[in-house]
């Protein structure tokens, strides 16, 4: 457990010290939120009805930006190799990596979402539901992203391939995330989308570490 926390702490420190990616990601997230209304037009009602879709698209796309950071540096300087020999299982390291990746890349986006909600004229219940859906769904995105990063860690152009691999797998999260916005109000208010979203995240976070550790071991061979 201690080693697990150390891995997370190390990642967070590294992210704070070279904090460029997080900020870039945040700017990217907000820019998508700005660009979409410009493309769609300033109609309040249209924007409000599309807001959850816009927010989720922005979150999905920007979660694909920082994937290389997760493993490539550690692979190149040999950290992953030594972690493979350390007194902690590779699956635990992978889980720690998912957690730190979520804290670095998803949490800032969730904090920035109120800004987008205001610009997109979201109603209060819809906004709260979207926040909850983001909280429930982004762990799955983080797990899938880490998986894509692990699969492409030895590739020179891994940053391009990983998103292509991840996007189809992220479709369920997108579907339940967007429909989760109607959970609290409206004619079809029900919590089932949220429950599915939580289930997908739990599944992804539970199983992805094993797949990631397999892929990393194959990469370090």
């Amino acid at each position, binding site marked *: 457990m201690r080693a697990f926390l150390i891995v997370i702490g190390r990642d967070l420190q590294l992210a704070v010290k070279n904090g460029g990616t997080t900020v870039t990601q945040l700017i990217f997230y907000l820019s998508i939120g700005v660009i979409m209304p410009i493309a769609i037009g300033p109609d309040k009602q249209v924007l409000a009805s599309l807001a959850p879709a816009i927010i989720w698209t922005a979150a999905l796309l920007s979660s694909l930006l920082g994937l290389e950071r997760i493993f490539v540096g550690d692979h190149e300087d040999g950290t992953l190799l030594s972690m493979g020999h350390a007194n902690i299982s590779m699956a635990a390291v992978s889980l720690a990596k998912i957690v730190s990746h979520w804290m670095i890349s998803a949490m800032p986006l969730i904090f920035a979402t109120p800004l987008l909600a205001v610009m997109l004229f979201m109603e209060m219940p819809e906004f709260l539901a979207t926040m909850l859906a983001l909280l429930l769904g982004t762990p799955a995105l983080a797990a899938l992203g880490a998986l894509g990063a692990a699969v492409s860690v030895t590739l020179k*152009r891994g940053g391009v391939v990983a998103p292509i691999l991840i996007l189809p797998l992220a*479709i*369920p999260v997108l579907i339940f995330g967007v429909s989760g916005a109607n959970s609290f109000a409206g004619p079809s208010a029900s919590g089932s989308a949220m429950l599915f979203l939580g289930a997908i995240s739990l599944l992804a976070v539970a199983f992805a570490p094993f797949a990631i550790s397999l892929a990393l071991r194959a990469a370090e061979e």
Partner: protein
Amino acid sequence: MSMDNTSPVNRPRNWFSALAHPGIFLGWSRHFIRPLIFLTAVTFVIGLWFSFFNSPPDYQMGETVRIMYIHVPTAWLSQMIYSIMAISAIGSLVWRHPLADVAMKAAAPLGAAFTAMALFTGALWGRPTWGTYWEWDGRMTSTLVLFLMYLGLVALWNTFSEQSRGARIIAVFTLVGAINIPIIKFSVEWWNALHQPSIIKADGLSMPASIYTPLLIMTLAFTLLFFVLHLVNIRSEIFRRRANSLERRHVMESGSESGHGAGEWPDGNGNGRET
């Protein structure tokens, strides 16, 4: 593990690994190609004859029902090929079998091609019957997602310069995809049900024998076609890897003769083999 070692010393012990050893595989599979091609051609002739001349037009869809005889077999293949890839992935992860790697790699572009065919014929069929080329129907959407996954896997294979290391990583991803396919299918169907009740039902369950017979024969023909293409693809991939390792060995040897260091060669690890 080298791909070209058939010397008696390294001959695998049990019959299963003997059958699947790349070198031995090249030997016995050669005799299967021509009979298989012949069988495929015959089945296609019979199937096409049935589907064009010996089956009635549908009372609702008319002649366009014949598109089904290509559409359904390719759609079936699009799922069967992924299962074959997933099984090969297990073989490559658990037993580290070089032939399983090759089988997995050889199936990916075929899967993409057949899925594309299923989507394309579906669009052609949808236009006269449903009045639209594309509908965000649950089944169509999940087939499209499957197509994207095939493309992703092909792209992944193409980016690995060292195929044998890539194989294990790709096997992991193939299996993750296999677990995800039911989830994607379920969520897409749920998503569509939310938007509109599904009015479209592909393949009515009750089907007269006159339509069922050509459908079955064509499915068999397409499955055989896949096996032929897969076999040929596997063989040429094995040959390609052999050629690569021969080339590397040649470069190594001529390099050491003329006194160059091994570090001069771009692959650097330079033991002239598939590691």
